[in-house]
C-alpha cells in the first residue's frame, strides 16, 4: 500500500462522518426521548423512567415480548444447527447432485421480499392443517435465518487453510474426526456470530410473523407495529430502547466472537 492511497482527504472524512451520523442520530434521539417525563413525545419534560414502568405493567406487551424471546431463542438455535450443516455441505461437499439448487435455495431468502416468504409459508401451514402460533412462527424464522447462518459460516470455512484438515488426515484421523477436532474449533466464532444474527433477525421480523402466527399469539414487533401505525407513543420509545439494549449486549458478544475469529485467520464474513 502506497502513501498516496492511505492519505485521507477532507472529502473522505466528511463522507464517512455524514454517513455514520445519518445511521446513528435517529437511534440516539429515540433513546433520549424514552427517558422523557412528558407525555408529548416532542416536549422535553425532564428525565423519567415513567414509560418503562408503563411497559412493565402492560400485560399484552409483556406477553408479546416473552413470545418473541422464545421464538428467537428456539429458531436461532435450530437455524444455527441447520445453517452450519448446510455451510459444511456447500464448502466441503464439492460437487453433488442438486448442489446448485441447494445453494440457490439458501441464498434466495436473503433478498426475497418478506411478503412472499410469509404468504407462501402460511399457505403451506394451512394446507398441512397446522395450528398457527409459536411453532409456525418459529419454523418460519428458522427457514429465513438459517440462510444467514449458512453465509456467515460458509465464508469462514472458505477462508480456512485446508492443509490443516489434510494434515490431520495424513496423521490418521478419519474425515469426520479431522473435521471435528481441527476445523470445528476454528469456525466456532462464526457459528456464535451466526446464532446472534439469527436471534436479532427473529426478534425484528414483523411481516413473516404476521402471516404465520395465529390469533392471540402476537410477537413483540407485531404489537409495536400496530401501535406505531396509530402514532408515536412514549411507551414504544421505552420498549424500543430496551430492545436496542438487548441487541447491544448481543453485538458485544458477537464482536468478541468475531475478534477471536479474525485473530485466528482472515475473517471474510460478508455480514
Amino acid at each position, binding site marked *: 500500500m502506497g502513501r*498516496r492511497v492511505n492519505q*485521507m482527504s477532507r472529502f473522505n472524512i466528511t463522507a464517512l462522518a455524514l*454517513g455514520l451520523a445519518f445511521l446513528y442520530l435517529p437511534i440516539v434521539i429515540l433513546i433520549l426521548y424514552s427517558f422523557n417525563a412528558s407525555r408529548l413525545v*416532542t416536549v422535553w419534560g425532564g428525565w423519567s423512567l415513567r414509560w418503562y414502568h408503563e411497559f412493565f405493567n402492560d400485560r399484552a406487551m409483556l406477553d408479546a415480548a416473552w413470545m418473541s424471546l422464545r421464538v428467537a431463542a428456539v429458531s436461532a438455535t435450530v437455524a444455527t444447527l441447520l445453517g452450519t*450443516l448446510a455451510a459444511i455441505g456447500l464448502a466441503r461437499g464439492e460437487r453433488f447432485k442438486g448442489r446448485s439448487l441447494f445453494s440457490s435455495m439458501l441464498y434466495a431468502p436473503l433478498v426475497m421480499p418478506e411478503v412472499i416468504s410469509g404468504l407462501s409459508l402460511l399457505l403451506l401451514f394451512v394446507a398441512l392443517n397446522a395450528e398457527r402460533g409459536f411453532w409456525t412462527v418459529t419454523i418460519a424464522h428458522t427457514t429465513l435465518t438459517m440462510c444467514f447462518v449458512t453465509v456467515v459460516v460458509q465464508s469462514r470455512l472458505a*477462508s480456512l487453510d485446508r492443509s490443516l484438515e489434510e494434515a490431520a488426515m495424513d496423521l490418521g484421523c478419519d474425515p469426520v474426526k479431522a473435521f471435528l477436532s481441527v476445523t470445528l474449533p476454528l469456525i466456532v466464532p462464526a457459528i456464535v456470530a451466526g446464532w446472534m444474527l439469527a436471534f436479532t433477525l427473529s426478534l*425484528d421480523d414483523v411481516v413473516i410473523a404476521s402471516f404465520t402466527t395465529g390469533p392471540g399469539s402476537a410477537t413483540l*414487533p407485531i404489537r409495536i407495529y400496530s401501535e406505531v401505525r396509530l402514532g408515536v407513543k412514549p411507551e414504544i420509545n421505552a420498549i424500543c430502547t430496551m430492545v436496542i439494549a438487548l441487541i447491544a449486549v448481543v453485538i458485544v458478544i458477537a464482536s468478541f466472537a468475531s475478534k477471536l475469529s*479474525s485473530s485466528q485467520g482472515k475473517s471474510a464474513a460478508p455480514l
Partner: protein
Amino acid sequence: MSARRIFAGPARLAAIAPYAWMVLFFLVPFGFVLKISLSQTAIAQPPYVPVFDVTEGWASIKAAFGQLSLDNFRLLVSDDLYISSYLRSVLVAVISTAILLLIGYPVAYGMARLPKRWQPIAMMLVIVPFWTSFLIRIYAWINILQHDGLLNKVLLALHIVSKPVVWLSTDTAMYIGIVYSYLPFMILPLYATLAKMDGSLLEAAGDLGASPARAFWLVTFPLSLPGVAAGVLLCFIPIVGEFVIPDLLAGSGSMMIGQTLWLEFFTNKDWPVASAAAVALLLLLIPPLLLYDRLQRRTLAGGG
C-alpha cells in the same frame, strides 16, 4: 487432493437435513402459492376453493388442469390498482437504489481509504445499525419527521421554513426510511471490493499523468463494478417487495405491490388474488434474482 475427495462424502451427508428443510419450507410453499393463485375465491375457511386435490389421484389432477382458473391473473392485468402498484414498486426501487449508490459509494470509499487499523472499527459502525431492529429504526424516523418533531423544530429555529413542513405520509419520508434501512447493504459489498483493490494501480495511473478524478473513473470505478452490482441487487430486490416502510412512512394515496398483497390478504381476505400478486411479483424478480444468485455463488465459492 485425495483428502479433499474423502472429505466430500461426510460433508454431503451433512447437507441432507438442511436440504430437506429448505425443500419443505422454502420450495414446496411456492407450489402452494401457485396453486392457490389459480383457485377461486370463496367465503369459507380457508377462503378459497381448491381447483384440484392431489390426494384424489392422477385422474383428478388431469381433469382439474382443464379448469384451472386464470381469473386472478386476469384481474391483476385489468385492474389499474395492481398495474400502478407494480409500476410504483419498480420506480421506488430504482430511485431508492440510485440514491443508495450515490450515498453509499462515497462512504464505502472513505472507509476503504482509512488507515488499516481504523477500517474494522468503521465496518463495525456500519454493521451495528443493521443488527439494530429495522422496525425500531423506522419508528425512530417517525419521531423525527412528525409534525412537531425534531426536524421541523430545527428548520423553524434556523428560520429555513416559516411553518412546520408535512414530512410524514409523503414519498420523501418513505425514501428517507428506505435509504436509511438499506444503506449498510449498499456500503458493505462496495467496501469489500474497494478495500481489496491494489493501490499500486492508482499510483501507476498517477505516475502516467492521470489526475485523481481521471484515475478514479478509469481505474477505481471499473474495478469496483462487482461490488456495485452486489450492492444494487441486495437493495433493489427486497425494496421492490417492501411493505413496512411504505406502509408507515408513505401516504395512503398510492401503494407498492407489497402493500397491495398485504391489503388483499389481511383486509380483503382474498387469498387467491394475494397469491396471484405474489406470483407476479416473483416473476418480476426472477431476472435480478438469477443475477444475484450467480454473484453470490462466485463470491462464496471463490474463497470468500
